């Protein structure tokens, strides 16, 4: 089923036992972040957290860890909460086949109930901001979908962008944003700054859960995130025009903040505990001026904790990183069976593939590096045989244990691009990358003494189903 707003999804989480309401009074810091840090440790069925009794606030509602388990991710896609990881990725691939699904324009957006403008547009009046990690430079907003357009081609809906970026609160009406050069909004800002212009943005918070998924999907530059949301939802994404900027925003957002990234201005930002599990910053980064805030009555602040993996961000950018890489590799190499890019947004990518001939697996590995996402990620690519499940790490370790000979299976390519947050780079933004060929060599590559591989007995699948039934019936 498709959710049209954030509250509809919270209702489903509540009914499914996947939303934990913490009614006791908590401190804004460190309690809320520490609870969200702890929640994913509860495992694959970890719940979302909901706080509404926060010391010093009279009317705070804060939801975290909303995507922070495979159960919640499944429910976000309208799947049963028991759906396995690989099955969720496969369903994501099937739904992407219906892309693009045009959005639906709706009147009377839910966020139009209240407005603050000009000097009154004070973010502290709307959001119960809280701080996350000890070394963070301030209050962050890290789960908002930020909407912008290409200033050189503003009517091209494919070139508009909806993305999640780290945003630091720098003042009552001032924010900072991190446009990583590999991400689309950085291209928009670059064009605006070359022209000496500001870049209008709409920052939308508290969205239905598929919007958060598409906003963190590494799509191609001219692909429209809302049209992917329609495909994943199985129904057009409901949109409205933001009143000040005219930017297309979700109809059901809790809060819509409008303003501009001030062109050609930089200011000290950070540090911030990032998705890499390391702090980054302080750097001089672009600044946003808030001009207008629209919000639902009694807005719920959706927030995301990120830290030592896995935390919510790892669930949010798991399936949606695997799928576009899979699609792009399959386009050139139909032998590719599956792609696991769930680790740190694909800084490690595991690909299973059939081999056309000797050396083919290395070519697949090199193609990963030249995909749009690979330009900023894919520091290590592991290629495994078609019968190895890249989502089954013990099988991947078996492939590394037995199929990989460093003499011929490690390809190290110097000085490639990587996002500046990747901590292993000697110069931020430049790193060597590694392809590990852990496939069985095929002719004319005759290395190794492989003999014949042991395969599952033909009757094993039948017995697996039987054993599952018997154990479930106990």
């Amino acid at each position, binding site marked *: 089923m498709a959710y049209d707003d954030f509250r509809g999804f919270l209702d489903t989480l509540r009914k499914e036992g996947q939303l934990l309401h913490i009614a006791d009074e908590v401190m804004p810091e460190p309690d809320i972040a520490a609870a969200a840090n702890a929640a994913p440790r509860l495992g694959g069925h970890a719940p979302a957290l909901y706080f509404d009794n926060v*010391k010093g606030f009279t009317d705070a509602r804060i939801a975290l860890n909303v995507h922070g388990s495979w159960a919640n991710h499944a429910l976000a896609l309208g799947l049963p909460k028991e759906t396995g990881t690989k099955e969720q990725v496969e369903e994501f691939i099937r739904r992407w086949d219906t892309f693009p699904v045009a959005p639906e324009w709706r009147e009377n957006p839910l966020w139009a109930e209240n407005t603050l403008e000009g000097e009154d547009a004070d973010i502290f009046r709307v959001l119960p901001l809280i701080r996350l990690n000890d070394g963070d430079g301030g*209050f962050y907003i890290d789960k908002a979908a930020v909407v912008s357009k290409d200033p050189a081609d503003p009517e091209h809906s494919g070139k508009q962008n909806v993305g999640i970026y780290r945003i630091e609160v720098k003042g*009552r009406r001032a924010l900072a944003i991190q446009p990583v050069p590999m991400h689309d909004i950085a291209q928009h800002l670059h064009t605006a700054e070359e022209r000496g212009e500001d870049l209008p943005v709409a920052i939308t918070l508290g969205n239905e859960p598929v919007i958060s998924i598409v906003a963190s999907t590494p799509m191609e530059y001219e692909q429209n995130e809302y049209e992917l949301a329609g495909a994943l939802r199985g129904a057009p994404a409901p949109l409205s025009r933001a009143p000040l900027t005219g930017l297309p925003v979700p109809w059901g957002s809790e809060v819509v903040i409008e303003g501009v990234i001030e062109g050609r201005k930089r200011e000290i930002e950070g540090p911030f505990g990032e998705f890499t599990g390391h702090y980054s910053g302080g*750097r001089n980064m672009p600044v946003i001026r808030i001009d207008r805030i629209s919000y639902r009555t009694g807005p719920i602040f959706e927030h995301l904790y990120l830290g030592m993996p896995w935390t919510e961000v790892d669930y949010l950018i798991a399936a949606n990183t695997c799928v576009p890489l899979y699609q792009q590799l399959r386009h050139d190499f139909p032998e590719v069976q599956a792609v696991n890019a769930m680790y740190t947004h694909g800084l490690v990518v595991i690909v299973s593939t059939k081999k056309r001939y000797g050396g083919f697996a290395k070519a697949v590995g090199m193609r990963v590096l030249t995909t749009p996402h690979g330009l900023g990620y894919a520091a290590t690519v592991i290629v495994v045989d078609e019968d190895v499940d890249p989502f089954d790490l013990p099988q991947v370790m078996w492939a590394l244990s037995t199929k990989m000979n460093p003499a011929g299976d490690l390809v190290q390519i110097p000085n490639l691009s990587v996002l500046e947050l990747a901590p292993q780079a000697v110069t931020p933004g430049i790193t060597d990358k590694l392809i590990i060929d852990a496939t069985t060599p095929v002719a004319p590559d005759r290395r190794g003494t492989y003999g014949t591989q042991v395969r599952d007995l033909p009757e094993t699948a039948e017995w697996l189903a039987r054993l599952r039934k018997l154990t479930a019936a106990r």
Partner: protein
Amino acid sequence: MSDTTPLCPRCAHEAIEHITGSPVPGVWEVLQCGRCLYMWRTSEPARRIRRDAYPEEFMLTPEDIGTAPEVPAVPPLRRPGAGAATR
């Protein structure tokens, strides 16, 4: 409350601005350093709000701020009339 936090915990600067206060009066304040822009709530643990308890690895110096890289770099202004064909 600001008299109990006379220094920025992070860079030891003395000019601290009051940004906002708790909706329930007097429970906490949000403060910001005028130099390194560190922002914190006065009810946070000491390790986040007191200079003498602030972890060394998170401290910033004026030199750190002065040498912070620009991300992303500001591009050169394009001359008016220079066409998009150059891109």
